């Protein structure tokens, strides 16, 4: 399936859920998530299990809503926010990252008629996505350095102060490294002629794209009918 189809589907469903939140939207989200997970053979084990306090917080919220006679609304709001989050994750799990920027350039092509630099934007998204794994690696290393340094004896206020300073160091170090890397990427862009242009990748739409779009339109119709 073309990556652009997935991005369009993601946008359509998200907007539908926001415009018409209700049991229909919850049902639509569930159907799309389950169907795409089945199609891409994503097992349920990939979903990270939140810690206990998270469940406790949810339970307290549910109890208070129940007392206020609004449990239904509470469940709806929760289901929709987690469903939308799940859609984004599903896109990430099922799409090779390198297919996304060219797809964005194609989707944004109408905007370029207005004189907006859509190609530059798509190329910038490409750079962001390409450097994301490097960024995550850096966060891992900075956090590891801090773990190795942390004296095991710290407790209470000292530990809290230390944690605060560690977060600040993490942020500033990341920022400093990113600014340096940005300069290097800038030089590399200059070395390619200074014009950020993505290679044009031909769009091939097939039966899966048609099926996905049809299904999404049906599902969104369902969401609109069921308030």
């Amino acid at each position, binding site marked *: 399936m073309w990556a652009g189809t997935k*991005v369009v589907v993601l946008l359509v469903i998200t907007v539908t859920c926001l415009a018409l939140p209700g049991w229909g939207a919850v049902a639509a989200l569930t159907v799309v998530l389950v169907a795409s997970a089945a199609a891409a053979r994503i097992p349920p084990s990939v979903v990270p299990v939140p810690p206990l306090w998270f469940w406790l917080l949810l339970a307290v919220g549910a109890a208070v809503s129940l007392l*206020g006679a609004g449990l239904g609304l509470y469940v709806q709001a929760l289901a929709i926010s987690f469903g939308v989050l799940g859609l984004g994750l599903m896109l990430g799990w099922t799409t090779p990252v390198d297919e996304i920027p060219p797809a964005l350039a194609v989707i944004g092509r109408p905007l370029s008629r207005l004189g907006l630099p859509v190609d530059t934007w798509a190329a910038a998204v490409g750079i962001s996505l390409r450097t994301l794994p490097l960024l995550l690696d850096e966060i891992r290393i900075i956090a590891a*350095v801090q773990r190795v340094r942390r004296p095991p004896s710290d407790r209470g206020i000292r530990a809290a102060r230390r944690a605060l300073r560690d977060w600040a160091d993490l942020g500033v170090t990341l920022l400093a490294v990113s600014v340096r890397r*940005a300069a290097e990427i800038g030089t590399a862009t200059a070395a390619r002629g200074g*014009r950020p242009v993505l*290679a044009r990748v031909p769009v091939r739409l097939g039966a899966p794209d048609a099926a996905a779009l049809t299904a999404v339109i049906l599902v969104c119709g369902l969401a609109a009918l069921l308030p």
Partner: protein
Amino acid sequence: MSAPRTPFVAWRVAPAELSSAEFGAAGLLGGLAAATVAVGKVLPHVGVLELLATIPFAVLAVQHRARAVVTGAIAGATVALLLVGLGGLLTVCGCALIGGAVGWVKARRRGGWTVLGCALVLGPLVGIAADAVLVLFAPLRELALGSVTHLAAGVTVALHGIPVLSPAAEYLRGVIDLLVGTWWVWVPVAATIAAVGGMLVTWRLLIAAVARLAPDRADGIGGRTREAEWPPPAPLPVSLNAIEVHYPSASAPALAIERLDISPGSFVVVTGANGSGKSTLLHALAGAPVTRGRVERPGPIGLGRVGGTALVLQRPETQVLGMTVTEDLAWGLPDGHPLDVPAALAEVGLSGLEHRSTSALSGGQLQRLAIAAAIVRRPALLLSDESTAMVDSAGRDGIIGLLAGLPRRHGITVVHVTHFEAEARQADRHIVLAAGRVVRDAPPAAPDRPTRPVERGPAPQPDSPAVLEARDLSYTYAPGTPWAHRALRNVSMEVAAGEGVRVEGGNGSGKSTLAWLLAGLLVPSSGTCTLDGRPVDQQVGAVSIAFQHSRLQVQRPTVDAEIASAAARGFASEAERVEFAQRALALVDLDPALARRPVDALSGGQLKRVALAGILVRRPRALILDEPFAGLDPASRDALVETLLRIREAQAMAIVLITHDVVGADRLCPRVISLRQGILR
């Protein structure tokens, strides 16, 4: 026929497009903001983090034009949308607005009052926009307001259960009902409060962050204006006449050359120690401005253009711009330029990797790809700025062979800058720089001295007991998912006190995973890893680890603060801290006067030693070094080996050296073990 325009037309035209520096900053800082927001959304207990996403945009706005902030916001918002959905997109947009405005104020050298003024204008505007959205999306509004009402009702019922609190409950209920009833007033009010708070916090943090960021070290290559498309580039022959380059902070010129000509069709190698001005020379050839003198060439330099000048840079991972090999080759090529991907890859020895993701390539492969991307532009001049520094010795030989063949095969003139003298052997011309001046300019000398015989360190004492021990160590990433990856299987090794062991292996051999396990930073999937008999993951910090990228290891603003932090020591006075840092610096043969220096003012070699000083002053029983020699010139590398040898003897420390570079490590680590795909060979 139209008259050819002069190359100077471009700078008079308002530059509508982003400069390459702005583009790089927008992509990188936008991505950083998106990652920050994503972490905040996925881990709700650190949700406050999301607000820090304003800082990258503020820095972007301080250093670049508004259009760079817009591009950064679009990049960040899109990435956030892909990572965590529409909520992420909206948060990034809000952060871009706040950060951009604060950075804009800072760039104009205004103060906190201007920030407050901006917040009082922006807040209500955003609030009114939010009102409009809520009016349009009525069901969403009802869901949100309904949830709040019901929660409030629930709290009231709960409070009624406690007789004392029942008036308070009624009052609370009344307040919330009032708020919900007049939501269209409170949304802009809340937005204004958020804008004021967010902008003032961002302002404070930005001032702190800018103080710690290195001053803009733009190398001057590829400015904001692009050369006109006409006339065609003609960078050669180039001649430097009485040029001098000064950097603001230094008194002596970084480069002072009477006369230097580069004529077409040769392979020129420039060598010199760190700080000899060789990179400055290369930047001057690439079009960076010089302080004094003239750089003469027949036509425009044509950076990255067909027939112009191509650049291959030092760090492999930041000069590859595409996500797949093919995409990278085509990145930035003019429409319609012929591109034979298989042939281009075959030439640099990357056949069959067309569709490989660039993040899966090794450093040497990335450099080959960069050379291929340069060759497909058929440049007249190829400039290589220490492109072999981060590559292992086998990869180095391959890259030099490739560069040396370009003049004959394609008529491309190559100027290669390096700190390895041996790379000049195949050159037509060998230029040596020292302290910014040319001290030699001739065909390369025949290698007069034979390669140094390998000196063996003291033989390991087989009877000394093992300090650091791994038994049947295995590790699997993302177990139980489709991406489960077994990085290490059944590895057993031991290191005795005062012994050095080198772990070698290529990309994906699992050597980094082994380093993390030995330091206790990962918990083994199976097997054990112990220091003096106790599992290392229960005593994190007992085994020290020095990472390859020192800029990530050195996290405090000044050298003395960094060493104190690395040693996990607090001090009563600053004088005591400086004295402690000076002792630590002496340990790694650094000038104690560096103790008060900001870390950003250090060279790469000094930074590595400062990182080591903080580690060694704790007298660890075992030390893991991850690629400690990458990017060092041979003299600095030998000096670092000497230092480590002395400390290893003095402290009876066990050393594990993770490297793919064989040169220079034999004396420090006579024993070598090899990893191949997670298995010990």
